[in-house]
């Protein structure tokens, strides 16, 4: 059980070593990594966040998922700052007794991270810099849960 917000990169393997569930308590472990995907004109991605709120918001999301699906463990790492193409933005790892609950919990956590974690992304391009607009579908996705 951990939420980490940091500027520096993370190592999924090292995080999985700290994840409970590999001792026979979990039947499924799912991990997700979000990356800076390049397109023709993107140079870098800047992530701004609200430090006093970020950890609190992520912990709330984690706690909700934990309770809702009886997870064995959860680890969330989210970076901020200026990231280059191909760099890791964030990761979530979830361990659960069964595959189905691990999948749903991961989907839930990602949906809430999109619209309830106080991060904002600015794409630095060759020609201009643009704040990423939140997708209306992302907000709507929360009504699924």
């Amino acid at each position: 059980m951990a939420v980490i917000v940091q500027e520096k990169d993370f190592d999924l393997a090292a995080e999985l070593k700290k994840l409970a569930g590999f001792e026979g308590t979990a039947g499924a472990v799912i991990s997700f990594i979000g990356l800076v995907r390049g397109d023709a004109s993107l140079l870098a991605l800047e992530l701004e966040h609200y430090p006093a709120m970020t950890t609190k918001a992520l912990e709330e999301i984690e706690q909700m998922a934990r309770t809702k699906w009886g997870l064995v463990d959860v680890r969330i790492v989210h970076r901020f700052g200026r990231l280059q193409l191909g760099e890791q933005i964030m990761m979530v790892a979830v361990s659960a007794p069964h595959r189905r609950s691990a999948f749903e919990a991961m989907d839930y956590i990602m949906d809430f991270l999109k619209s309830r974690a106080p991060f904002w992304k600015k794409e630095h391009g060759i020609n201009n810099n643009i704040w990423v607009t939140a997708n209306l579908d992302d907000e709507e996705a929360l009504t699924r849960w």
Partner: protein
Amino acid sequence: MTLKILYFAWLRERIGEPSEQVETNASTVSDLIAELRLRDERYDFAFSDLSSVRVAINQTLSDFDATLDGASEVAFFPPMTGG
């Protein structure tokens, strides 16, 4: 009362400050926004489309009708884009 107000992303850029202390008698978030918009056209521009503005009171996501009773920190920002 004295409020600490924070701005993020393009709200921060439009207003030109990441945070400020404000002395106000506003009773709701809407009242506070109305006060700020009168103060300078930078604020008027930043708050011109409230459908793309979100607010947190004391680090908890809230809404424009919310009372400022007990508020010490109010943050304005665009819809979040985490993950």
